[in-house]
């Protein structure tokens, strides 16, 4: 068990380190170096020298890398080209909204997706199964912004049930604030959940079918147990382990979807920040946003691994994963 935890934590650290390193070297190894991006075509050797010195870019690469890691550990992600404010500050302003959106999409996908997949597997080829297969396929093939626009057009513009963008109305307090947050959240959330839940539930369904075909399930039936006992104790308890692992792996995709969704709905999270930063060529923001999202996803992934530890006795009693 300790070995499992240590190996998962080690992998998480490794993942973050690789993510950070990729972005560092990308920025430095570009033809012309990072100052080209900052100078943006202006030919001013004095300014360039000053910039190089300011950012420590005249140091050897390895020193820069060490400095970069050191600053990162202290939470220093550099300064935004555009607003000149610290990247970390900008990110932390936006992060709560992304956490709210992606986090609730994650939970809903998990909580609704598993029963959906299980129900489809139990009544194979039944109506829910066929519906799931259809929507699962559609979810896989749908481009997030397309769906987001569709939802906007129908529910915000045509029916007027929800606001067309943003995260919260101005000048509201107390319960109204909460209500406003929720009504702003629903459409982006829906589009994110729809894209993710179909493929996820389909995989849960495949897992569950595999488990239902296992010898121990046939044996459980041969013991005269009720179908609930067979499905819950013998089927679901086994199918849920790979389902949770899988959700951990799908987190990256979910966050990617969130970036696109936020852009369409002008939802003020990291995603729309990325969109703005792309337009402004604000590389420190892009780099910081990626590092922050990577850390978030890796941490959430670690969390799902630990949940698996609770679910799988083989991991708990020491046999290797």
């Amino acid at each position, binding site marked *: 068990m300790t070995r499992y935890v240590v190996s998962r934590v080690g992998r998480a650290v490794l993942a973050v380190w690789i993510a950070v390193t990729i972005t560092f070297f990308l920025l430095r190894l570009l033809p012309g170096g990072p100052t080209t991006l900052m100078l943006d075509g202006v030919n001013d050797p004095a300014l360039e020298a000053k910039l190089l010195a300011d950012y420590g870019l005249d140091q050897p690469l390895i020193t820069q890398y060490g400095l970069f890691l050191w600053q990162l550990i202290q939470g220093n992600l550099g300064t935004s080209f555009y607003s000149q404010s610290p990247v970390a500050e900008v990110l932390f302003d936006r992060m709560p909204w992304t956490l709210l959106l992606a986090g609730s999409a994650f939970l809903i996908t998990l909580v609704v997706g598993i029963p959906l997949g299980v129900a489809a597997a139990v009544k194979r080829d039944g109506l829910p199964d066929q519906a799931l297969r259809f929507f699962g396929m559609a979810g896989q093939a749908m481009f997030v912004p397309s769906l987001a626009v569709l939802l906007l057009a129908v529910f915000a513009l045509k029916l007027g049930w929800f606001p067309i963008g943003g995260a919260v109305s101005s000048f509201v307090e107390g319960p109204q604030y909460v209500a406003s947050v929720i009504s702003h959240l629903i459409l982006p959330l829906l589009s994110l959940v729809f894209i993710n839940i179909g493929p996820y539930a389909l995989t849960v369904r495949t897992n569950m079918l595999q488990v239902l075909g296992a*010898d121990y399930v046939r044996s459980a*039936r*041969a013991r005269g147990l*009720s179908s609930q006992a067979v499905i819950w*104790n013998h089927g679901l308890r086994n199918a849920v382990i790979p389902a949770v692992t899988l959700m951990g792996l799908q987190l990256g995709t979910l966050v990617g979807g969130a970036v696109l969704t936020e852009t369409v709905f002008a939802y003020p999270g990291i995603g729309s920040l990325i969109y703005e930063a792309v337009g402004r060529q604000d590389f420190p923001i892009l780099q910081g946003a990626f590092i922050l999202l990577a850390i978030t996803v890796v941490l959430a992934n670690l969390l799902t691994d630990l949940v698996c530890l609770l679910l799988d006795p083989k991991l708990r009693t020491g*046999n*290797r994963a």
Partner: protein
Amino acid sequence: MSDTQNVAEAVPPVSEREVILDVRDLAVDFTTEMGRVSGVQGVSFTLHRGETLAIVGESGSGKTTTINAVLGLLPGNGDVTSGEIFFRGTDIAGYSEKALRGIRGKHIGLVPQDPMSNLNPVMRVGDQLAEVLLAHGKATRKDVRGKVNELLARAGLPDAATRARQYPHEFSGGMRQRALIAIGLACQPELLIADEPTSALDVTVQRTILDHLGSLTRDLGTAMILVTHDLGLAAERAETVIVMNKGRIVEQGPSAQILRDPQHEYTRRLVESAPSLASDRMKPINPGALTGQITEMPVILHVRDLVKEYTVRSHTDGKRKTFTAVTGVNFDLHRGTTLAIVGESGSGKSTTARIALRLEEPTSGLVEFNGTNIAHLRGRGLKTLRKQVQPIFQDPYASLNPMASVGEILEEPLKIYRLGNRAARRERAMDLLEMVALDASIYDRFATELSGGQRQRIAIARALALEPDLIICDEPVSALDVLVQAQILELLMKLQTELGLSYLFISHDLAVVRLIADQIVVMKAGEIVERGAVVDVFTSPQHEYTRMLLDSIPHIASRGTAG
């Protein structure tokens, strides 16, 4: 076959007792991609209280389909199309899933085939047993713990209270099967169906499990259906035997009578070819001069002080440990003869074979082939060795590349050594097919289309392609049905005489070894415990472990020195 008469004791008549199960004219069909396929047809039999009935057949004979129909557990594409299944006087063939639930587990227990896959991996063993007791009202929440411990103890699990709280992966195969027996008998059913209950276990464990199962059912007065592919085992354990072939019952009757006087052609062949029943060695040799003759032949494979160690991670604390697979192994294989290495899984016999094939390198020791040490051979020397030493593996389904045609498979070794042109290679492939008695038309077929026996013939043909001196057979017949086993063994013997081949023959099955080997080496836990000429080892085993292995073969023990 005269010596099989005393096999089964005279049985008290059971026909007056209550009829537990009465199957009449049962037929099952399956819907497949190719349309309706018949699973079983016209199956009828009767089972009385306390009686043990064995259903014997090879894979695909319909024996499993029959018991699945009785349990109402046919796979989704299978239907009972006609016939009745009377369980204690009521026809349950058309019962709903819900009605069957009251019968399964409570009145009809099941001991499934593979203990490794039939326990729920995420549920404590005790909970899986308790679940059955609670579902059928045989225990209350209060007294269920005690009953679980009692049942596990009765099934022969020491320290039952601790075991009940463990998960299946903490159990060995034999312990799991004991737990499954405890579950199958938990509600004291009138009928227990044991589906190949020991075929996945080691031979020495098999016997104790079967004994235990026998005594438990006797004590409880439970009738039992024993499903098995082993006619010898069936005759030893059951009063009545049903022989099935291609979905039909070809013969049924008292087990002694079936062994002594099989009526149907198929049963006759089955009795003749079952290794555990056949009495004589296939090879025509003179037993008197045997030992002398063999040792006069030059040594082709000379193994001294062989040691193979692996680094493994411990299951409990995750620390690296050294696991010794093989240690201090010595033997000489003489040209033109067969040396068998016998042992159970984990005995180190397969590791030895893999080292002899130079698929693995030994940690230390000497492996000489024709006087050259091959233990750490590489490069050109290795390539020369590969030509002279060829393998035949156990599972004919997995030992041929399913994406390749028979012709491609046979010609691959020739291609690797750039022997002959296209036409010459084809001609050689045809010769090889003839050697293993396969029709030339099979050349263009794909391995996936062939039967297990045909595939093993192809594997043998390919092993012969480079005209090797030594063939290493790793359990070459243990995945085959008995009838086919005999044919393949015969073919191996014939080729040995014709081509002067030497065989290193790896097997867990002493009965098979007796038919083919000249000399025998018995391995246990990585070491050789006994060696000698086959006749000597079988007639007067010196080591206790060898005696145990011999005892666990149905009937050999009772026939004493018949071999």
